[in-house]
């Protein structure tokens, strides 16, 4: 194990949060070892070390994995039950309504409460929204410029960290998701008045985000 990899290993263990390449680089740049290294080659070396660590821990009880854009030590999932026994704590369970709301926000972000409600066909409780916010899984990122100026929700960083995602693109494949046009085509050759109006709103929202 080379010195750099050892340094990075120590940093990842010491950090409370996932550490990304840039953060590691900034910390290393201050050290005397790296005085004469260019930033670019240091970044490349860090990346090499990280993948070396990732490989090394692949078959052990703990792992070095990339979440939310950074690297972190985590226990291997196969020991979940054992570690839960250590904590004597019930695994936090999520209600279906919370999961559905979270899924809609994750895949359609930014989105409004009205849209979530129309997709789920039920009212969404403020408590549940507050709970998801409190966990850092969702956050308000602005208001939609329509009457009432409703909040626009998106996923927060903790969502990536807790669900082991490196970025939103790592979400379970949504390509099998029909987009709204396909939905309408499938449902009928022609659309009736009501859904089209909803439809356009949704599309507008999407294009606004781009």
């Amino acid at each position: 194990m080379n010195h750099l990899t050892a340094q990075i290993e120590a940093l990842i263990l010491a950090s409370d949060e996932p550490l990304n390449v840039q953060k590691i680089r900034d910390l290393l740049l201050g050290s005397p070892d790296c005085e004469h290294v260019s930033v670019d080659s240091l970044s490349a070396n860090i990346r090499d070390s990280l993948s070396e660590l990732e490989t090394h821990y692949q078959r052990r009880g703990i792992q070095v994995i990339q979440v939310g854009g950074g690297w972190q030590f985590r226990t291997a999932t196969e020991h979940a039950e054992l570690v839960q026994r250590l904590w004597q704590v019930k695994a936090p369970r999520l209600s279906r309504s919370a999961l559905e709301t979270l899924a809609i926000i994750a895949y359609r972000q930014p989105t409004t409460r009205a849209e979530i409600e129309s997709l789920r066909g039920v009212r969404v409780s403020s408590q549940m929204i507050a709970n998801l916010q409190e966990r850092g899984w969702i956050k308000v990122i602005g208001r939609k410029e329509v009457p009432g100026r409703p909040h626009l929700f998106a996923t927060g960083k903790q969502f990536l960290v807790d669900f082991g995602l490196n970025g939103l693109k790592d979400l379970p494949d949504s390509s099998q998701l029909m987009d709204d046009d396909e939905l309408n085509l499938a449902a009928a050759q022609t659309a009736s008045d009501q859904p089209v109006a909803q439809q356009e709103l949704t599309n507008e929202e999407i294009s606004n985000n781009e």
Partner: protein
Amino acid sequence: MSESTQLSLIQSDPDAHALPPVHLDQFEGPLDVLLHLIRKQKLDLFDIPIAMITQQYLDILEIQEDLDLEMSGDYLVMASSLMQLKSRMLLPRPETDDEGNDIDPRSELAAQLVAYEQYRLLAEELNERPRLNRDLFVRCIFPEADDVERPLPLADLDALLIAFRAVLKRVNREVRHQIFTEPMNMREQMSFVLQRLQHGGMPLDELLHDSPGIDALVTTILAILELWRQQSITVLQREHFGAIMLLPRGKEQ
């Protein structure tokens, strides 16, 4: 339209009532119930037998004993949309759009159901992902090398609240209820009283002297009574109308 047609539409399928009873608690709303009915009977989402489904849906609503108003709203709205759909299906002349194409009145519902089903599936997939603190865990003790001087952790009120809530969720509801109804001030005052008595007894008057205002007085008295009940302190009055002494336990004689 003749009455017999209507009747036959409503009672078109003898299986309409044959489904096992379900409780709405198991569902996440009307769309969830409809999907259950459709998938259970292997029906075509894009060709829903509206009359039959409406009947089954209404049957389910009917057997619910404790449908609370808050929750029932969404279900009743769906019931009325279904009945409206059913009546539109009965129209002799199909509805057409601007270009003269036929409109299937069910298309809106079908699109809604497909969209919901997709998100329901995604929610399931999300739930199956390894989740932090359920399936995997991060390191917990600060891994200090001997030479590292660790700065003191920062105070974080939000984190504190979340932690407390996590505890509450783990203990049973009874305890949770108990905690909520306890007035914060009294707890504070209990600590205060105990602290004042740490080095010996004190007359009640003197202690109350430090409690400005009626609210504070009442809270202090309640705190004293609670401490007394818990046998953390003793309250003594040696003669009628004499001074009331508060004593920490173990120092009373």
